[in-house]
């Protein structure tokens, strides 16, 4: 989720949930609601494919992640794609023949004598398709890790800050404001430069930069839930504060968090790719989409497949989470008429 949408997210989080719904009912409803939207279905489908790729990469990939093919296949780096699927059967009608030549120039109908490489070879003569598959692991893993860490820390800050209130709240929120005042990418670059390039540090940088977002959203939610009757009732009954936090406040704060976190994964993917692009991603041999794209950005005109495929994957990754997040938001927004 982008920082610009923070105020709206905060506002939405402030709306208390209908207290009479039981938790499980709310979730099941939300789920159904979300996936009634066509766009969310599309997002889920894309995510499904990406997950499948990530999980089964070793099985699906025809070559190894780091397998160099210079000697074994005698191919040059940056070889164009070769797809053993003939398109010669396409009739010679004007529009279709343009399609045919477009497909051919992208690898279709290549000779069965040439080894098949669906997405061509990269700058080190490694199979791009295989690396794209393995890259799904890193992209999904890294972005989810970054957001998870940020959510954990941010939610903790927001929970305590909102519940305790007073000077703790003030102080914590000022610190969050300070963090938010810096453009995310710049802060991330500074952090990675300070700690050294590498995937771990990049993930750390991206999560630190987004902690304030989750802190703010949770805090807003907490502030409103705090005023609810059932919390007052608990207090009157003498329930301890930590227990109120964990049993009342926290479960009721999850809904906006899920929305924001889902959208946040999309942003994390982009930030990680941007960090790789400026050269702070670490080991060039690990198949990471942002890194793959960054290494070949000057070959965009001579070997577009090297930029196109990783770029497309990043896009799909971000799109999937954005669509699902949007759907969730619409579904969980209590103000929308159902």
């Amino acid at each position, binding site marked *: 989720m982008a920082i610009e949408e923070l105020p709206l997210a905060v506002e939405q989080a402030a709306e208390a949930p209908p207290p009479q719904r039981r938790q499980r009912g709310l979730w099941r409803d939300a789920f159904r609601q979300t996936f009634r939207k066509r766009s969310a279905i599309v997002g889920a489908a894309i995510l499904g494919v990406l997950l499948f790729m990530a999980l089964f990469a070793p099985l699906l990939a025809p070559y190894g992640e*780091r397998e160099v093919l210079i000697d074994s296949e005698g191919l040059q780096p940056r070889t164009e794609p070769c797809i053993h699927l003939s398109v010669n059967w396409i009739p010679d009608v004007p529009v279709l023949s343009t399609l045919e030549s477009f497909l051919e120039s992208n690898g279709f109908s290549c000779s069965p004598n040439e080894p098949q490489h669906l997405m061509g070879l990269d700058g080190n003569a490694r199979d791009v398709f295989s690396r794209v598959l393995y890259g799904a692991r890193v992209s999904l893993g890294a972005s989810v890790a970054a957001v998870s860490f940020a959510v954990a820390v941010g939610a903790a800050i927001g929970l305590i800050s909102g519940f305790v209130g007073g000077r703790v709240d003030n102080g914590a929120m000022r610190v969050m404001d300070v963090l938010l005042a810096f453009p995310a990418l710049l802060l991330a670059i500074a952090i990675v430069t300070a700690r050294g*390039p590498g995937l771990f540090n990049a993930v750390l940088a991206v999560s630190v930069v987004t902690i304030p977002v989750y802190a703010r959203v949770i805090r807003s939610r907490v502030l409103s839930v705090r005023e609810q009757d059932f919390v007052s009732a608990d207090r009157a009954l003498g329930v301890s504060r930590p227990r109120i936090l964990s049993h009342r406040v926290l479960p009721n704060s999850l809904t906006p968090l899920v929305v924001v976190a889902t959208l946040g994964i999309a942003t994390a993917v982009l930030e990680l790719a941007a960090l790789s692009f400026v*050269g702070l991603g670490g080991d060039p041999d690990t198949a990471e989409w942002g890194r793959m794209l960054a290494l070949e950005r*000057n070959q965009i*005109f001579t070997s577009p497949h090297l930029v196109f495929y990783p770029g497309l994957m990043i896009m799909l990754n971000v799109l999937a989470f954005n669509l699902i997040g949007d759907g969730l938001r619409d579904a969980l927004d209590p103000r929308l008429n159902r």
Partner: protein
Amino acid sequence: MRQRRIRWVSAFVALGLVAAACGGDDDDSAEGDDEAPAEGGDFEAQSFDESAQCGTDAYAGNLASIEAVDAQTVKFTLCNPDVAFPSKVAFSALGIFPEEQLEDAASGAIIDSPIGTGPYKLEAWEKGSQIVLTANEDYWGDAPGIPTVVFRWSEESAQRLVELQSGDVDGIDNVGTEDFATVSNDSNLQLIEREPLNVFYLGFNVDKPPFDNEQLRQAIGYAIDKDRIIDNFYPEGSIAADQFLPPGIPQYQDGAETFTYDPDRARELLTEAGYPDGVDLGVLSYRATVRGYLPQPPQVASDIRDQLAQVGITVALDEQEEGAFIDNANTGALSFYMLGWGADFPDATNFWDFHFGVGASPQFGTGFDDMHEVLTEAGSTVDEDERADLYAQANELLLQHAQAIPIAYGGSAVAFDAAVEGAHASPLSNERFAVMSEEGADQLVWMQNGEPSGLYCADETDGEALRVCEQINESLLGYEVGGTEVEPALAEEWESNDDLTEWTFTLRDGVTFHDGSTFDANDVVASYRTQWDAADPRHVGREGLFTYFEALFGGFLNPPPAPAG
């Protein structure tokens, strides 16, 4: 230097001799000039005689004295013979400035707006954007073919190419490896290649285990398939390295013995080194910065890792940020790394001494005495055959000690709009725009890799800066267009004594600087003196290092204390 661009001055020997012959009579005259001074009276000849300091501990340099004999004649005296003196004099760091501007050096104006005698003068420098030069109407030589030259820069090769192809820019430097074909196949463009005057090598710090093991280092030497690296990651014109010197350097040895690609021998040596089952060597460090000797650092690093893996050597890649990497190299903190070197001046000493001589850079750890001996001797021998022998010995020693494994000499190229006439690439990277022209065009836009840090040639070492200030300031001599032969520039003639210790230059008459002031021998003396004497108040530049003067002539008068580490 490794982080500077290639500076190919000229072959000291051959051309120095040719230059000496061209200069005129070889007789023993100290004052042999045929031209009468053009100016009468009012000329207060400057001269500085420091010959008493020759050979003392306090002075390591070779210049003994410099004297303005009259308004049109300058004489240099050296402590020791230097066959290559004319070639050095032609170097861009020895450009001539007006005395008045040098007096003002401390203000820094000379760095941003140098005044010279060149075919172009500085019109404007918009920091971050462009440098605009306009033609010098009163130029003593042929008028420049194009009235305005604009310098631009971008670090991205694709960016430079797009601008060239779209016509926004007329010439670019460092065509990307993959773009050579694109440019060649485009009839609107012309591709001009530069020969490789650099070396790319794998380096070891021999003090750090496990790299203190000579057999391990040799094993790595045999494990590398240089041809595979050249074929796949270098542009045309690149050559697999067989010694530390590239072929353009005069002391290059034909048929030197080198590490061939021999995985079996590599495995044998590994076993002898104590690693029969392979070994994990930690990290291979490098920086992502593109250089002539290494156009694709991450790809080459990956490939080397792959090649080493095939003989059982495991290594992890450690890509470091540029500044940190160089600092680490300079302090000997790197154990196993990729680095290279571009020629500052075309002599073996530039390559060998910095890396393996006495007092060499700590990047390789403790040096070897046998190499020190050979190199010290080679650096002070004048006889070229003797030197060749000595450097052949050095080659063998390097093969044995293997603290550096030379891999490639990297070629590069420039590209111009096909309509530009006189377009050329200089092996010294000093393209001369004054000889270029284009029909109907009154402006030529050139795009290089980076912005100059300053335009005071004397205190710059980066090719990006030197290329610009060379259009503005001229030296006593110059290099032919697109080549390395020395030719007259501000001096019409020159001659020396038999010893090659006294050199007399006859200056051109009627030359004016861009600000209208007259050029005479005092400007030459002032320009040299400013760099020569570190205690001179004018000895102030952008960094104040005057690196090339020190490298070419051995040292400064009243030198500052040596830096620590």
